[in-house]
């Protein structure tokens, strides 16, 4: 037994000495229009000074994975460096006619729908690459959707730590307790990414999440 353990011990020490320091890959996941990009922008604006992507009331504004290679979070004497990955909203249906209601032209709406389908596929394929994930849910909407359950179930199966953000708490219909009841095994933090409400508590939770990261 020691013959096996000792070389392994030295191998690990050696690898740790020369291994390039790798940043935590932090993914933002969730259904469309939950506020993933608004939160990504808030994080990037706070810690890098620039935003990551555009936001819109029309669903599926983010149709490609957007990455901020390095975010240095320095908060209350602690530091956390991560690569931020904002993913397109995951949905089981995409109808270009839904975009027409927002005044889009038919061709633009069809193009948006096609890009959105690719975005969903891309987001799912990125799941394996994440170290930690923040699920961003709209706190005004019923959380018991199969998309939410599927995303969280897949992360649990991959042993990827999860933090749930109940976003849009500035709205009257927001109900954090409903989200807590739906996913009792996860930490839920209520914020308004748009107005920065409760964002400090969110940053505290991020440190806790990073500590749980796999590997």
């Amino acid at each position: 037994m020691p013959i096996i353990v000792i070389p392994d011990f030295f191998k690990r020490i050696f690898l740790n000495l020369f291994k390039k320091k790798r940043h935590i890959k932090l993914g933002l996941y969730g259904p469309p229009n939950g506020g993933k990009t608004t939160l990504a922008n808030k994080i990037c604006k706070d810690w890098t000074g620039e935003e990551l992507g555009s936001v819109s009331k029309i669903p599926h504004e983010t149709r490609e994975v957007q990455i901020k290679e390095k975010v240095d979070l320095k908060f209350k004497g602690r530091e956390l460096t991560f690569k931020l990955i904002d993913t397109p909203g995951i949905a089981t249906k995409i109808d270009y006619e839904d975009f027409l209601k927002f005044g889009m032209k038919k061709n633009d709406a069809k193009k948006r729908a096609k890009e959105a389908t690719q975005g969903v596929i891309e987001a799912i394929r990125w799941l394996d690459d994440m170290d930690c994930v923040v699920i961003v849910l709209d706190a005004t909407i019923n959380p018991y959707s199969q998309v939410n359950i599927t995303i969280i179930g897949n992360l649990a199966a991959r042993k990827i730590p999860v933090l749930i953000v109940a976003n849009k708490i500035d709205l009257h219909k927001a109900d954090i307790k409903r989200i807590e009841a739906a996913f009792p095994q996860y930490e839920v933090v209520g914020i308004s990414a748009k107005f920065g409400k409760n964002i400090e508590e969110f940053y505290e939770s991020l440190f806790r999440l990073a500590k749980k990261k796999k590997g």
Partner: protein
Amino acid sequence: MAKTFSSLTLQFVPYSEVERLDTVGRIKKLLKIVLQNKIVILQGKLKVEEEARLIEDTMALVGSIKGFKGIELAVLSPKLEDMPIVMRMRRQFARALIGEQDAITIIGPASIIREIKKDPSRIQVLLKGK
């Protein structure tokens, strides 16, 4: 505008019909029924990885099949955490032996189903009206 339809078909798929299929085969079978504008009621549930794959394959079809807008999906499964410990162990043992047959999965075309509302213990399927 919502598409109108004159009849609605629910197709029950017993667990035994998908039990021996691999992931690709299961998803193919379920989507084939959905593409016929039928609502699938599957005895049991897919694995979480299969659910993700179902969403991926659905999105690929939305981009390639004219008129197909995707699916509505819901799973109703008894929560083991809420059960007394003896019953929970019995269920877990049964699941290990014969699979998760105590769940129900509903999958339907988004062109027919407007929304599936899910509470922890009930599912409401809302159809697109005339």
